């Protein structure tokens, strides 16, 4: 698993770590039962605070994605595979939507902005934010 963080981004580093672990699971880089690198290993490799890595692991455990075994590290849970499956299904929906957008001849950036502004609209129009949103 190769991790890339952007400290200058407004997104907290622990959230960036969580996203990357999730992405690694969704793309099959990490599979159920696999062990994640230790907190110390990641902190020294990425030059970030170990507390940040520990927080990301705690949140991943809270979301049911990893299991923290005392003294031996963090492991990807079996149940995560299920979630990966729904992500795979959602991916096909996204893919077909993008296919349909082709007729509008928009740039990638324009599509991204449309999606982001729709998401922003949902956030600010008072709809409840889902935990996994």
């Amino acid at each position, binding site marked *: 698993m190769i991790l890339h963080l952007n400290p*200058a*981004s*407004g997104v907290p*580093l622990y959230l960036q770590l969580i996203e990357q672990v999730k992405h690694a699971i969704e793309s099959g880089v990490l599979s159920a039962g696999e062990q994640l690198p230790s907190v110390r290993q990641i*902190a*020294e490799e990425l*030059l970030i*605070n170990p507390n940040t890595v520990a927080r990301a692991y705690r949140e991943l455990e809270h979301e049911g994605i990893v299991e923290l075994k005392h003294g031996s590290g963090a492991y990807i849970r079996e149940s995560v595979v299920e979630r990966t499956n729904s992500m795979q299904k959602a991916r096909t929906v996204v893919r077909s939507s993008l296919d349909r957008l082709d007729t509008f001849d928009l740039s990638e950036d324009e599509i991204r902005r449309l999606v982001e*502004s729709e998401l*922003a609209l949902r956030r600010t129009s008072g709809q409840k934010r889902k935990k996994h949103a």
Partner: protein
Amino acid sequence: MRDTATPLPFPAPEQSVIATSNLTRRFGSKAALDDVSFTVPRGSVFGLVGENGAGKSTLIKHLLGLWRAQAGTVRVFGLDPVSEPVSVLGRIGYLSEQPDLPEWMTVGEFIRYTQAFYPRWDAQYAEELRLQFGLDLDKRIRVLSKGQRAKLGLLGAQAHRPELLLLDEPSSGLDPIVRNDILAAVIRTVADEGRTVFFSSHLLEEIERVADHIAMLHQGKLVLCAQLDEIKLQYRRIVLHFDTPQIQPPAVPGALTVNGSGREWSILCNQPIKTNFLTRVIDDQPASLGDIFVGIAGGAHSHA
């Protein structure tokens, strides 16, 4: 019931390594520190930021007991660093921006000399650090580069495994490779033993990497003090689109800064803002730390 369920933003003072309350220091009519109250939780990496002259060094001098508080109190490990300097300083590893090293000594002599001051000096750890930093035992300090001096200073500050590592602008004027070595040493300190690190820096990139708590001084006042992640989650950069062009910056309740022209205005805020049917949110992103600082410093100016 609510009281017990609500977590405190910071640990109680007895769990904190540093605590100041209403600390004030004046130079003539100018307040270098103005009613500064904050605590540094044990085990945290606490970053202090602020422009030059904001009061960072003045604050650190008070933590080291070099200056007495004119008003308010300073506690380090629960002790007053002015009246109990030995108990306090023996547990602190301190590195200043320009470490004051004896030029005529060799690296080896300096290590033995520093060791003599600290009963809890760990010679094996010192040797480990020396090899890691690539410092030659027989080299005179006089001929060391700025980066090597910083590393030797850090070795001296770290090898007695202090409970509190206090770094004043540790990487100011150093190249990125040396800066990374210093950051790595800080990270190792925290990972190894859950010790506390307090450091001041004007490099936001550095703070964003390693700090979990930050405080910002502006003109002697503490204008921000919180967990970095919470700050990042709280502050957002929102772009609003107005149906009609706005000649003056629109009044947006809750906005810290408003920039733009015509129909599009960019807003920095730390609370949800209300929009009406004439405005639309076209972008909503987490704000960067740089953005937040400019917003807060600018805001503090206009209220002054």
